[in-house]
């Protein structure tokens, strides 16, 4: 039979030991993990722009080849930081913490958001990184816009823990391929965003089709999350887009 004192000592010692082991492992592996995350981010930006055959080995090289400018904008549409030189993963734009900035936006309406400008075979493509909430956890993505900041070229989505087969379908081509060609602004030039709606987009009139895509059956909350994410993030860029004229 073990005394209570023994049990407390045992548990205490065990916890301290385990904490020491786990925190040292986390610290040792952190640089490699951060590198992987950065490469993953580049991959997703390049894929959104429609660049093919991007993998973790060539992502950095392709990123440096295609990305011509990285901009940080603020809530008034001013350009805070611009970066055109090599070593792009060290630029301010690449280091922006979207989650933090979107929180700032919701609390005190001030933020710093990144914009990536790519040159793909002479065509300028602007990439806006997205972040929002799904059903179980965060969802994110990248949206690629033509140089008019209106027409969508492509999107990629990702998620942490949406339901497989339902909400998780947002990262499949079936969902993503609906976006190219859709418009952010209506004919009068007002910002409308891209909506994710129920009921089959093709059953709606042309002005609705212009700005909406089909939601995922059984993935309503995730679809709504994507809808809100696109609206919330892209409306932040409207002052910048209008300033450019």
């Amino acid at each position, binding site marked *: 039979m*073990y005394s209570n004192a*023994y*049990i407390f000592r*045992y*548990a205490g010692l*065990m*916890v301290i030991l*385990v904490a020491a*082991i*786990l925190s040292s*492992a*986390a610290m040792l*592996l952190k640089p*490699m*993990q951060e590198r*992987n*995350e950065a*490469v*993953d981010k580049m991959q997703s930006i390049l894929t959104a722009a429609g660049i093919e055959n991007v993998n*973790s080995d060539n992502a950095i090289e392709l990123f440096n080849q295609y990305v011509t400018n990285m901009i940080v904008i603020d809530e008034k549409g001013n350009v805070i930081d611009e970066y055109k030189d090599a070593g792009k993963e060290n630029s301010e734009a690449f280091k922006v913490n979207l989650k933090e900035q979107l929180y700032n936006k919701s609390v005190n309406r001030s933020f710093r958001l990144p914009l990536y400008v790519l040159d793909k075979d002479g065509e300028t493509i602007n990439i806006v990184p997205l972040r929002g909430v799904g059903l179980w956890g965060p969802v994110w993505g990248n949206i690629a816009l033509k140089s008019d900041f209106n027409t969508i070229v492509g999107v990629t989505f990702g998620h*942490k*823990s949406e339901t*497989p*087969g339902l909400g998780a379908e947002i990262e499949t081509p079936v969902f993503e391929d609906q976006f190219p060609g859709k418009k952010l602004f209506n004919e009068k030039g007002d910002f409308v965003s891209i909506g994710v709606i129920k009921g089959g987009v093709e059953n709606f009139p042309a002005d609705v089709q212009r700005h909406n895509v089909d939601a995922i059956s059984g993935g309503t909350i995730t679809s709504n999350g994507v809808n809100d994410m696109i609206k919330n993030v892209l409306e932040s860029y409207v002052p910048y887009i209008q300033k450019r004229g």
Partner: protein
Amino acid sequence: MSTDKQEREPLFSAKNRKLLTNPLNIDNPITVQVLGICSALAVTAKIKPAFVMALSVIVVTTFANLIISVMRNGIPPRIRIIVQLVVIASLVILVDQVLKAFVYDVSKQLSVFVGLIITNCIIMGRLEAFAMGNKPWPSILDGVGNGLGYGIILIIVGFVRELFGSGTIWGYHVIPEAFYDFGYKNNGFMILPPMALIIVGIIIWIQRSRNPELIEEN
């Protein structure tokens, strides 16, 4: 000392070999003990994640069994379940961190499921049923055996689901294009989790019809 030597059995005695081979067949954790079904559904749509999951579980069962077996005489029985959980959870976090650092793509797919290893009943079941009452070496064998038994089923299920669901094996296309031209289609149903249950059911059926002693009498 001399009597001690006589009692010591060889490393791979018949009894120890059984610890390793039984879980592959007549004592399989998935098809016979019916443990770890949840994660078997989740990661078997493709072979690659199934393989990584199997590998991770083998590592975790083996080391958890070893650690608990070494500690078994010191663990106060009243908090033994918590001690087991701490050991499993720490190992799983370590596996997760290592995957994130070295195979990021796989870790992205597995992120949700790596956490599931902690709740995988195979691991705690083996700790409670075996490692708490046996010496380190047999415990290691038991851990490897059960991990392998779990992994084999995972890979079989993953193979069937990936072949018929996506037409690929390990990401490489194996079904010739000509088939598709003749109207062959990948079976989308294979990708969905219920299909894993059906395949596991078929495996259980085959196994029991070949091995009548596994059939329960009701």
